[in-house]
């Protein structure tokens, strides 16, 4: 123990004596490990973390691949293979295998819902339909009240609901008096009987329901659902089971399939109409597939996997650079201390003792690195969660679990021991006498070792150049996207949506509401114009329909152009110029002659000639023709990139019964207006939540989220990589110049001027930089070519970007060289020679 304390003291003194290399190694470790911990935390949350339920490893997901005739609807919970019909779910839940190989089988499916507790604002979100045994099969206990039970999910279904813990906290402030109160889900009142446990966010990653309701209420709560409760050809329900104690997944699958095959042949096959023998054979060959269900059911994790893998790869590269840095910095440190090790050895220190000392120093560094990496990881996590596309929908949180923290410690220890201890041991390997004569560093500084270190530094420079060039190319791309002429105004425009059909409002009331909203929005202070639009602009959504020009050609592939149903002030609101004819008026409503407005691309694509106004369009033989009353300039529709599509506009008032509507408002004060909209809607339709309320600029930003994420990632990598590379160059140069102290002394004694020595150092670094820059540039060009879909109007060899990246590298390298070079030149030649 005394020896250990002695070694600790000694290690601490050694660190204090030459703090800079340790400090640099520490910074490298914190950056490298912190960024890896952050990425791992997200990866673990999205792809590896099991559900917070009892014995999650025994959960299995059911999938029913194969021929499915009829209707199939699936969502993010899984592909169409995974869904079952409701009758099949009920049959399987009482199959003989249940109670034997499986403890039970439960079903679930989320749907879009407007939810409100009496007296509180309505919020748009999701509700989860669950079978009565859902919570008990998961082994969950309520945070408040009770969870749903089998009796709640019988034929008629009790009108009860369980609130999600997060929503209860967020929307209702964790009100303990919620039990027994009424919650409205899509306009239907249900009694709150409990609150789900904290941390449980449903069995579908990305689902994040606000409330859990009995599955048997589906047809009352979801206006989009057909009455298919007895339809075996309508597939929509997801199912999972729990393995009985000691039963393997394969055994359960075999047992369940025995029932499934019987149900297919005896119950379902007779219901299939007009199925030929071959298809019948395929139908009967279907088998249930059971897969590990510990992480619930979701395809979101898999779809996020490429982005997360990209992140993980980038983080791994940063860690690699960190390792190289540690090796380089500590090699320099070891070289500088070779004499000390030799002296200790010459007065009797064993190699084990010296190794222990080095081990303690490395462990101190690793511990400090791990501690310092935690705030770095926390910062990186917050940034990543804010920037990672889909992080919000996946419910990713800026928090690190125990596995991430363990990983931090392991990485810190492994990095430091593997890359830090080795150089120290190498330095000790120098023959004591040679080291005492001052030849220690030379002993460890063989040509091969020098080449190795130069290769490390070259790799770092290449990585930095690559990351800088990629960041530059993507930043240029983002800039280009921001400069695109959209043909519409986004500045000062606020958008939002309403879905009154989910609150049980009938068609006439909805039309009335939309008209009132258009009028009242336009009358708000500061508002210049307001209009409805059925298509949410610049979100990727499109509406298309078959249409033809009466007595005109229909261009190949242009028979289903995009369209939008809009209000009279639409073009005024969005600043789109009417080139010919007129905009819509309030008189263009149901019963009036059908009218349309087309854009320039439509005129060109459908060869309408110089006078399109007055020409007629036809969309159905049963409906009257539509007269073109105006031509507008082209404008962006669903995307910023790419050519502006041929578009035609119809007056929404001529198409009654619309289920949901978007509104755009041009105002002098967008944020002031955003505060006025919820009270306005609350006055007009108390149960209706405001959905997707944000500025159009923000909507455009969201469209570029992936682009922004890759740019941010490349920028972060570039900053990290360049910082670490500069540190690496510093370490390498410090070490090389320490080894060359004698040579510098001789050269100065022989008459070399300081600038000649600086030129010598610059030449050495310059060659390395040049090689690194060339490699990095080639890699960047190749990667940018591979990811060219992400770049917008940027050449992957953009000279300005590549030159700028090169400039940053050279500047960073120059800064990294200043201190070691000055230090080397400051030593008098005689002192340098005396040392050797």
């Amino acid at each position, binding site marked *: 123990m005394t020896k250990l304390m002695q070694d600790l003291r000694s290690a601490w003194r050694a660190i204090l004596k030459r703090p800079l290399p340790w400090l640099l190694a520490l910074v490298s470790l914190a950056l490298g490990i912190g960024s890896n911990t952050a990425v791992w935390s997200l990866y673990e949350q999205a792809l590896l973390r099991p559900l917070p339920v009892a014995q999650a490893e025994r959960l299995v997901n059911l999938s029913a691949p194969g021929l499915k005739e009829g209707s199939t609807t699936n969502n993010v919970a899984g592909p169409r293979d995974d869904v079952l019909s409701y009758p099949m779910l009920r049959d399987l839940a009482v199959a003989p295998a249940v109670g034997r190989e499986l403890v039970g089988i439960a079903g679930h499916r989320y749907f879009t819902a407007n939810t409100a507790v009496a007296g509180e604002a309505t919020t748009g979100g999701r509700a989860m339909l669950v079978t009565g045994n859902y919570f008990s099969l998961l082994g969950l206990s309520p945070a408040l009240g009770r969870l749903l039970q089998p009796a709640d999910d019988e034929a008629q279904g009790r009108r009860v609901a369980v609130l999600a813990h997060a929503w209860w906290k967020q929307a209702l402030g964790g009100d303990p008096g919620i039990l027994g109160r009424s919650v409205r889900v899509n306009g239907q009142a249900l009694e709150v009987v409990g609150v789900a446990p904290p941390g449980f966010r449903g069995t579908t990653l990305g689902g994040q329901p606000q409330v859990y309701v009995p599955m048997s209420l589906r047809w009352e709560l979801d206006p989009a659902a057909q009455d298919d409760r007895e339809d075996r050809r309508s597939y929509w329900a997801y199912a999972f089971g729990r393995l009985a104690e000691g039963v393997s997944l394969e055994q359960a699958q075999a047992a369940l399939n025995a029932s499934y095959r019987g149900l297919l042949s005896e119950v379902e096959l007779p219901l299939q109409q007009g199925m030929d023998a071959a298809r019948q054979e395929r139908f009967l060959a279907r088998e249930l597939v059971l897969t590990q269900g510990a992480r619930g059911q979701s395809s979101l994790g898999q779809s996020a996997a490429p982005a997360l893998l990209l992140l993980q790869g980038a983080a791994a590269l940063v860690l690699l650079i960190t390792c190289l840095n540690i090796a380089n910095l500590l090699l320099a440190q070891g070289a500088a201390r070779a004499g000390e090790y030799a002296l200790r050895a010459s007065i009797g220190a064993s190699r084990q003792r010296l190794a222990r000392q080095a081990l303690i120093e490395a462990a101190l560094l690793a511990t400090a690195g791990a501690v310092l990496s935690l705030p770095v990881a926390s910062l990186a996590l917050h940034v990543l969660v804010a920037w990672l596309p889909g992080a919000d929908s996946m419910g990713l949180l800026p928090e690190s679990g125990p596995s991430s923290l363990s990983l931090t410690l392991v990485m810190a220890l492994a990095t430091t021991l593997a890359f830090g201890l080795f150089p120290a041991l190498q330095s000790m390997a120098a023959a004591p006498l040679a080291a005492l004569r001052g030849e220690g560093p030379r002993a460890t500084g063989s040509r091969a070792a020098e080449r190795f270190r130069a290769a490390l530094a070259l790799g770092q420079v290449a990585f930095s150049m690559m990351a800088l060039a990629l960041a530059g190319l993507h930043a240029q791309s983002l800039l280009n996207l921001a400069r695109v002429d959209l043909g519409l105004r986004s500045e000062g425009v606020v958008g939002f949506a309403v879905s009154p059909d989910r609150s049980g409002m009938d068609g006439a009331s909805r039309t009335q509401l939309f008209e009132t909203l258009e009028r009242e929005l336009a009358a708000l202070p500061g508002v210049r114009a307001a209009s409805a639009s059925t298509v949410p602009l610049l979100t990727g959504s499109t509406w298309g329909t078959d249409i033809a020009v009466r007595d005109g050609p229909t261009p190949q592939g242009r028979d289903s152009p995009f369209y939008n149903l809009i209000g009279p002030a639409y073009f005024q609101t969005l600043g789109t110029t009417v080139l010919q004819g007129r905009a819509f008026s309030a008189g263009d409503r149901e019963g009036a002659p059908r009218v349309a407005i087309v854009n320039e691309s439509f005129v060109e694509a459908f060869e309408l000639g110089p006078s399109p106004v007055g020409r007629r369009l036809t969309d159905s033989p049963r409906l009257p023709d539509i007269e073109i009353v105006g031509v507008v300039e082209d404008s962006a529709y669903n995307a910023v990139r790419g050519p502006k599509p041929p578009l035609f506009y119809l007056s929404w008032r001529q198409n009654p019964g619309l289920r949901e509507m978007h509104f755009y408002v041009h105002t002098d004060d967008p944020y002031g207006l955003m505060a006025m909209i919820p009270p306005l809607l609350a006055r007009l339709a108390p149960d209706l939540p405001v959905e997707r309320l944000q500025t159009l600029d923000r909507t455009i930003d969201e469209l570029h989220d992936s682009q922004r994420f890759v740019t941010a990632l490349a920028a972060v990598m570039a900053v990290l990589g360049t910082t670490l590379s500069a540190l690496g160059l510093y370490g390498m140069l410090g070490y090389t110049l320490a080894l060359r102290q004698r040579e510098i002394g*001789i*050269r*100065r*004694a*022989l*008459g070399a001027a300081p600038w000649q020595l600086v030129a010598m150092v610059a030449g050495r670094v310059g060659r390395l930089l040049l090689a690194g820059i060339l490699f990095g540039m080639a890699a960047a060009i190749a990667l940018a070519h591979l990811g060219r879909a992400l770049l917008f109007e940027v050449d992957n060899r953009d000279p300005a970007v590549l030159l700028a990246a090169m400039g940053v590298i050279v500047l960073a390298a120059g800064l990294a060289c200043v201190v070691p070079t000055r230090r080397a030149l400051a030593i*008098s*030649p*005689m002192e340098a020679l005396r040392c050797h």
Partner: protein
Amino acid sequence: MIVQLRQLDRIHVQAGLRVPVLREIHLDIAEGEFLSIVGPSGSGKTTLLNVLGLMDHDWSGEYWLDGSAVHQAGARQRQALQRSAVGFIFQHYHLLDDLTVAENLELPLSYRDLPSTARRERVQAALARFGLEGKKGLYPAQLSGGQQQLVAVARAVIARPRLLLADEPTGALHSSQGREIMALLTELNREGMTIVQVTHNPEFAALAARTVELRDGVLGAA
């Protein structure tokens, strides 16, 4: 006089203490003279040589080298003066391990901006003069100690300095090799080169025309 030192003091500061290393040195060295500096270890011999060779500037007093007032010169002038007037021979040869014999010889010339043809000619002449033609492509590690010191002497004189300073030039050699090097220095002196050597060896010190002794930083006649 090629060298004139007047009231020269050199003080080392060690752990906050001022330790005088050279005290009131007064020394004249005539052009073409061969001077030996002797004295016990720590007496200041090497420090004096470093001052003479313009590698140490932290002294007070007056120093005239080849008519130039070193004590008034700036760093650039001192460096130019060193390059034009001074050559060094070290006890441990201090050849550059990564350079061949020919490259080591060329090094001082490259710092004096000589055209490459002139450099090649001078290197060729030095190789011939010092009998190193057969070794010009070898690296220092492939030479004996005597041969390495021979290269070091050749390198010290290749730029034709007016003042050759030798710090224990035979200190790392055995006696026969030492004698060969001393013979070479004597020959160079006969050709007109001013030589100042620091040595512990009385036999080799005696080869100089004059010997001075340093004791505790004070210069006196030997």
